[in-house]
């Protein structure tokens, strides 16, 4: 057992650099200082989360929070979500879907697959900042050292 409280690492999968920057800025502004690792494509993100062999072993002792965009160049975020939620080491990591799609069927599908939060990217800045701030609060909660 590691006595040191394990910090939560934020994995951000977002192909649009602008969106990535805005998300990061707003997370920071909300006072969340956790490490953010950004990926702009699904393949490298999956390699980091599940390891190169796809076993999920590297994440066994890590605490991850995954921010997922659905429109990625090499795969859809839904594929990543399904893989993460199917792996025994990562399935308890919270996943936040952050995308432009507000199609009800798509949202339902993500929740069915085990997504924890679904946020539609609003163009309205105030709404967007608010959503990110809520996320920040969420992250703060996550920072409480886990007992196991």
């Amino acid at each position, binding site marked *: 057992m590691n006595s040191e409280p394990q910090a939560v690492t934020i994995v951000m999968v977002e192909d649009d650099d602008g969106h990535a920057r805005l998300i990061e800025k707003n997370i920071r502004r909300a006072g969340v200082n956790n490490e953010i690792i950004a990926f702009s494509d699904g393949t490298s993100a999956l390699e980091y989360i599940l390891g190169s062999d796809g076993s999920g072993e590297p994440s066994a002792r890590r605490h991850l929070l995954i921010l997922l965009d659905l429109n990625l160049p090499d795969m859809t975020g839904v594929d990543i979500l399904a893989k993460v939620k199917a792996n025994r080491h990562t399935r308890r990591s919270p996943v936040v879907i952050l995308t432009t799609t507000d199609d009800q069927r798509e949202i339902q599908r993500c929740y069915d697959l085990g997504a924890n939060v679904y946020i539609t990217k609003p*163009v*309205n800045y105030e709404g967007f900042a608010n959503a990110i701030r809520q996320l920040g609060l969420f992250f703060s909660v996550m920072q409480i050292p886990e007992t196991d």
Partner: protein
Amino acid sequence: MPISNASFIRSALALLGAGLVILIILAGSSVWLSERTRENAADVLEAQRIRAGTSHLLALLLDAESAQRGFLLTHETAYLEPYRIAVGQVTADLDLLKTMHQGDASQTELVEHLSTVIQEKFAELAHTIALAEAEQRPEALEIVNTDRGRKLTDDAREKLTGLLNRADARLNSDVRAMTSDARFLSFATIAGAILVFLVGSGSLFIVVRHTRDVIAARTEVLTLNETLEERVKERTTDLARANEEIQRFAYIVSHDLRAPLVNIMGFTSELEVGVSTVEQFLEQVGGGEGEAARAAVREDMPEAIGFIRASTKRMDRLINAILRLSREGRRTLAPERINLETLLEQLMANVQHQLSEAGGKIAVVKPIPMLVSDRLALEQIFGNLIDNAVKYLDAGRPGRISISASEQGRLIHFDIADNGRGIAAQDHDRIFDLFRRSGVQDRQGEGIGLAHVRALVRRLGGDISVKSELGAGTTFRVSLPRVFRQTSESVAS
């Protein structure tokens, strides 16, 4: 095989005509031949009567002569019996013979002559018999011996035989004529029968061929019909697929347009934050220099940011509209039985408050027929039209909006009429296009409502049209099928 009805009718008529002509000829020749046969038969009878009469006369003559000889030989009066019978009948026989030959000029003379000869003969016979009866047999025999009586008899017999031969010849020729007529009749009948058979089989051939052509043509039409249906089905599927593609296209495009918009919006906000930081700093620094920078931060930059924000907001609304249209196009319609009266009353209640504030009125002209359609689509169609009517009322007069329905075949027409500001004639088509609006732009809106309404109405299998006069009012007519049936779209999905 091409079928020419004209040629079929022509040849059929020609054959019918030919058959008729043959039948007429056959009947005519039959009548003619039987008439000839009747004439011949009459002639034969006549000839036979002449022959019988002549024979009888000859027999009488010979009987009378034999009786004379017998009486002269034996002086027995019994022998005279045949003579007396002959005398009693000869005049009648001669008269008969005369009448029989009356029409024949060549024979009249002969018959006259014969009559004289026979009368002379009978006179001679009467004379000798009278002498014998008066016991003057030698004188009587003397007369017989002169051979005058025998010569008279020979003369009469010769003439009678001539007559007989003539009658025989006439009989023969009649029989020959009858035989040849009979042969001709049978020949004509056989020929006619053959011709009728030919005409009949010709007609049969033509009819059979024509029937076969008709059957072939019908089969072809049936095949064409089947393939036509198949082709229509293929086209419908293609169209549905194309439609689906357009919907997907609109959906994807609007999503991809949204991503950069998020950036513009987000970084505009970042800029705003930056500007306010700079502004605060400049305020703190103070001093005369930097006045231009202060003006830029205080006025120019917020103005620019304001325009950027307004534009991006507008663009977001447009993209949302496209998305909504695309999503509406992909939504599965669920037809159900709908009481439109209640639905309209609910929609009207939504605008009632706004309307009565300005002294306006909205009413439904009852009855409104029931129809089977998609409830959500109908709500959006009539909701949009009622909203538009309220939105574009003329401020100068109290608004009057009425909704009525009329039935025509399988369609129901709904008229939403108002006395609002109206639409200029050149805009009647444009208003149904996406993002297009008409008249004074003094009301909120993106030009989406009517485009959306038209898309919905068409999806429900109907159409929408507008009648309007600028400054007088507008009537939108929505025509919907009484019963909505899923068609091409159900094929695609």
